[in-house]
């Protein structure tokens, strides 16, 4: 569970709280009063290396490296009870998404998460829909009397992925295959 971290005040990344709170949805970070409601209602609270209120405290303190390397930010089941119950309206689910985005920029992406963008880049869907897989799906749908699937517009979808900065991740992994 929680590890003791010793760090000199000079080594804290003091701007971390503002890097997070400059996003509209994450402004609420600064209002946290450390009451712990988020952690007490958290679905995965027994499984994380840093409980939600500790993640928030660490963001406020400037422990950027520790937060972005934690397993806690990726263990969340996205049940949103933290955000729902916070008496100060801290939107922890959104802050967590932001922290994950920051970790991704540093190349820290668990494999359970990185594949999604590749699948969407290649199929438009988050489920593979090419070749033999596509034939099977189409056959099954026909048997049920369902209309043909309208294929996603891949050129448009790929442009959005590239324009928003995930193109390299989508293509880099494609090359790895």
């Amino acid at each position: 569970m929680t590890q003791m971290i010793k760090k000199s005040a000079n080594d804290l990344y003091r701007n971390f709280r503002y890097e997070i709170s400059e996003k509209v949805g994450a402004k609420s970070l600064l209002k946290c009063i450390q009451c712990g409601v988020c952690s007490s209602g958290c679905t995965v609270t027994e499984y994380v290396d840093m409980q939600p209120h500790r993640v928030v405290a660490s963001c406020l303190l400037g422990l950027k490296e520790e937060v972005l390397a934690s397993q806690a930010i990726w263990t969340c089941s996205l049940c949103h009870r933290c955000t729902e119950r916070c008496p100060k309206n801290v939107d922890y689910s959104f802050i967590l998404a932001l922290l994950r985005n920051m970790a991704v920029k540093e190349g820290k992406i668990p494999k359970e998460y990185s594949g999604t963008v590749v699948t969407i880049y290649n199929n438009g869907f988050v489920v593979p829909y090419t070749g033999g897989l596509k034939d099977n799906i189409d056959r099954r749908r026909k048997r049920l009397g369902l209309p043909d699937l309208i294929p996603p517009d891949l050129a448009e979808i790929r442009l959005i992925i590239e324009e928003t900065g995930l193109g390299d991740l989508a293509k880099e992994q494609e090359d790895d295959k």
Partner: protein
Amino acid sequence: MEYALFLGCTIPLKMPHLEKAFRDVAAILNVNLKEMEGVSCCPEPVSLQSLNIDTWMALGARNLAIAEKMGLDILTICSGCYETLKTVSVLLEEDKEYLEKINGILKKIGYNYTGKTKVYHFVELFSQPDWLAKLKELTVKPLDDLNLAVHYGCHLVRPSKIMQFDHPEKPEKIDIILETLGAKTIEFANKLECCGFCARLQEEIGDKLVEDKMTELCELEEEVDALIAVCPACTTQYDRKEKLVARKTGKELDIPVLYLAEIMAIALGVELEDLNLKQRSVKPDKLIKKLTT
């Protein structure tokens, strides 16, 4: 009533029998569904949002813009699609500066989203009073003998400042629909627990959550005929893991998991053999027997 039908990915590609049940229900209720041209994954709210919020927002806004071009509101059949599309629509309505940024990207492919598209999950639609009245009127096979447990899941109702349609900690809309069809719904301690599907890093989180809920349901005094879910992820999570957990722990867990549209279709008179009810790990044999005798 006409809606742009947003199918998403999991249901049409992996669980098309759920789509079939929903389309049957919509046809009986006379909801006119228009297919959406060229839409993508909603995109799914867990990993894509985690990788890059802007990508998630922009792909979502493109889907909303397609509905806007059709001049229709969106009807979703999956809680994940519902969460993404509703969140994107609400956030872009609140933050005009961000909407402008997203439109800057969409312009390059010929779209401009003005923020008009409303997003509904079919639970939100069918739990409204006039639809309930219609449901009642069209019920040909009342579910009088059934005890049903409802699983709301997380994304249908939370965060309530975005979803804005049922109580985030004491939801009742699915119960109301089922009671209108004649069924009895039960209260139980784990009713609002998460299914754990989205906790991808540790498989044991989902195992434990499914074990707790299914064990409680099996130990209740009154026999539970089925667990009813409205999201393909929750549906598949309980169905698959219930069987796995039973094997691992030696517990006798045998409650079938149905998608809400399936049980609605039964009440509205769709033949059981047209519904692929056996297409799941925990076969609803007892339920089928109860429905046919």
